[in-house]
């Protein structure tokens, strides 16, 4: 099998699966849809792994540097001779890593869904959508062209919309789907304009050329730096706008509001899209353009850094107060992505300086496993108790041991407790931050403590706290297909940290040695443990303490509980400003002024016609007088006035 075909098949298999299930699934394949989907993705996953193996060990390196390989390219839409969307397949280290992550997590989610979604009326449709998403996400990471990435970006968005709104009869699900789509669309506007800006100056949309032209001294770079708007160079503008797009998808503050709501979707979907894959697209995008950011526009990178850091902390605070377990996980996702973002932000380009970059990718990698594990675990719990609320849970550790253990592993991983995977990636990030920006480092440290706290708050509330009180019949822990993914992911959550990412995924393609000093690790680990201990004290058994503390915190707690009122601000802007101040006036203006003007013209004519009807009085002598008047008028005009 040629490499091109092999790589092309990775996204094409899910696509084919989508088409088959979408067109025929509902009627003919309603029972086998899950198997078809899972199988095709299984093949995809195998191909991804094979590709990864080939790339990292066989063909990817030239002179010790991992290359960007464009294995296939087709001129899909030519804007201008030098400006076209080339649909292509490009592989480089991050792509390969993402391929593995996406296909693997997706496979797990497919497997899990086989049990979780069993009996759903639109079972086949669900798998079709899952396949569509997987296809889009794989296409996104394989993009060789910035416009291609935008294209798949939108597709990812719409599949996310479809999946969030899967329970379309629930108004809240529809609203959440809409919100997710519109907010990310708004962010994509920035992305689009960013692309337009970059493309205008670099005369290309191709990633390879684009990065080359913007990261090395070239006339294009001079041009784009010379053009300024509001005192900021066009390059910075372009990159910031692209980052806005990334921030939208990756739920960075203040574009994060859709993510918690997106939890209305089926839980496996949240695991796939809103934890492991789609939400990291923003990180991926920044990483993709990292050379440009790092070498030519450090200012833009700073923005990435601060946005990431703030989001990480901000989300962690909110996560501590939420009671819906999926929402906790959602905010934790946001927080972790914030980590990845600021890791990129603190990084520099090349060699050891690119530690942040490597850490970010590493964290992306490990996070995918433990976060999807968390979500699937939460899914299993929800499946059991039919509720998302913590108050409905407790003491489940006996009832669902596998879920319990895997969940605990994931919690430890995300808290950064060695030797779980999260520890390793987080250490790299913290080190990079420490070396670059102490403020960010401080925030990161604090966040890491908070993370441990809220994760264990969640853990205890689900599995300990109070004795299980389930009413009536329950499913048990779920089918085998639900357990296998949990186990596999738990294994990954443990071992992923040992993957030699530093050898493979670096800012300039050259392997680096990651050597985090043991001494450096002490502080974060201690903080994490402290967080865990605090959570244990507060939540292991049911007591009054948390409520008291919450009351003492007063305003801050309330604000955090209400997500700092960001939603309300948005609501104000959209409802009050966009709808009432622009939409309604526009509609009114159209109906009354523009349309009114047209009607007015008609009415004027009619009135005029009414006014002059007296001329036709029906009296023949009047007619004669008018006749005479006509002659007089002609005489007056043409014998006197005209000359």
């Amino acid at each position: 099998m040629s490499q091109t075909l092999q790589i092309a098949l990775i996204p094409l298999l899910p696509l084919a699966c989508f088409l088959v299930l979408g067109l025929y699934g509902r009627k003919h394949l309603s029972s086998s849809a899950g198997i078809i989907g899972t199988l095709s993705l299984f093949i995809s996953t195998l191909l991804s792994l094979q590709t990864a193996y080939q790339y990292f060990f066989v063909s990817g390196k030239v002179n010790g540097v991992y290359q960007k390989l464009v294995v296939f390219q087709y001129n899909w839409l030519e804007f201008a001779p030098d400006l076209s969307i080339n649909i292509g397949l490009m592989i480089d280290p991050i792509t390969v890593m993402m391929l593995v992550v996406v296909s693997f997590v997706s496979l797990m989610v497919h497997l899990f869904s086989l049990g979780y979604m069993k009996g759903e009326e639109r079972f086949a449709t669900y798998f079709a959508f899952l396949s569509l998403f997987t296809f889009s996400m794989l296409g996104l990471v394989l993009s060789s062209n910035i416009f291609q990435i935008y294209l798949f970006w939108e597709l990812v968005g719409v599949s996310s919309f479809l999946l969030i709104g899967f329970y379309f009869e629930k108004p809240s699900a529809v609203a959440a789907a809409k919100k997710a789509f519109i907010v990310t669309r708004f962010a994509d506007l920035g992305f689009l304009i960013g692309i337009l800006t970059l493309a205008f100056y670099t005369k290309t949309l191709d990633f390879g050329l684009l990065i080359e032209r913007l990261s090395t001294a070239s006339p294009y770079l001079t041009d784009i730096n010379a053009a300024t708007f509001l005192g900021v160079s066009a390059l910075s503008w372009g990159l910031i706008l692209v980052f806005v797009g990334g921030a939208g998808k990756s739920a960075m503050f203040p574009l994060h509001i859709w993510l918690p709501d997106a939890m209305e979707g089926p839980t496996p979907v949240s695991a796939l899209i809103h934890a492991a894959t789609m939400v990291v697209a923003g990180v991926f995008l920044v990483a993709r353009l990292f050379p440009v950011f790092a070498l030519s526009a450090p200012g833009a990178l700073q923005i990435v850094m601060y946005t990431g850091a703030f989001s990480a902390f901000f989300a962690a605070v909110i996560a501590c107060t939420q009671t819906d377990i999926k929402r906790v996980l959602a905010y934790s996702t946001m927080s972790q992505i914030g980590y990845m973002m600021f890791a990129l932000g603190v990084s520099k380009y090349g060699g050891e300086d690119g530690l942040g970059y490597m850490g970010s990718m590493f964290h992306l990698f490990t996070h995918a496993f433990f976060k999807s594990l968390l979500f699937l675990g939460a899914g299993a719990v929800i499946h059991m108790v039919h509720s998302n609320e913590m108050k409905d849970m407790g003491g489940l550790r006996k009832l669902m041991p596998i879920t319990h253990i895997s969940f605990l592993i994931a919690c430890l991983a995300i808290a950064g407790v060695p030797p779980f995977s999260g520890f390793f990636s987080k250490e790299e990030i913290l080190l990079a931050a420490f070396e670059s920006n102490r403020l960010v480092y401080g925030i990161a440290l604090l966040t890491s403590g908070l993370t441990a706290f809220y994760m264990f708050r969640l853990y205890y509330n689900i599995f300990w706290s109070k004795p299980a009180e389930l009413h009536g019949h329950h499913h048990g822990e779920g089918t085998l297909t639900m357990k296998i993914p949990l186990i596999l992911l738990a294994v990954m959550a443990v071992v992923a940290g040992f993957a030699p990412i530093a050898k493979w995924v670096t800012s300039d393609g050259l392997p680096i040695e990651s050597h985090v000093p043991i001494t450096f690790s002490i502080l974060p680990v201690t903080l994490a443990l402290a967080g865990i201990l605090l959570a244990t004290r507060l939540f292991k058994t049911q007591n009054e303490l948390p409520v008291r503390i919450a009351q003492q915190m007063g305003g801050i707690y309330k604000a955090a509980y209400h997500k700092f009122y960001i939603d309300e601000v948005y609501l104000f802007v959209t409802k009050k400003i966009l709808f009432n101040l622009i939409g309604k006036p526009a509609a009114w203006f159209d109906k009354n002024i523009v349309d009114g003007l047209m009607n007015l013209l008609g009415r004027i004519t009619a009135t005029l016609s009414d006014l002059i009807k007296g001329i036709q009085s029906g009296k023949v002598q009047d007619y004669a007088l008018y006749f005479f008047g006509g002659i007089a008028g002609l005489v007056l005009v043409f014998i006197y006035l005209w000359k």
Partner: protein
Amino acid sequence: MTGIPLTHILFLSTALFFIGAYGLFTRRNMITMLMSVELMLNSVNINFVAFNKYLYPDKLGGVFFSIFIITIAAAEAAVAIAIIINLYRSHHSIDVEDASEMKY
């Protein structure tokens, strides 16, 4: 007649013409309106004859024109009177103000 300039005859005819016009504008009786028209036509006749005689005596164009006008006036008057009589049957009046059903 040598002492009378052409313009004086023309003044006469013009005056007669506008007397006729005035009559047409103001007379509410259809028959009198018709009479006014006859006056106007006669004034035109005077014009033709006077021009013919004073300015272009070598040909008889004007005189012939006036003969034809007289004839046509007769035909016109006849038809008009027939119409008026018919109208009188249905309206029982020959006041033009009464025959203004159709308007606007």
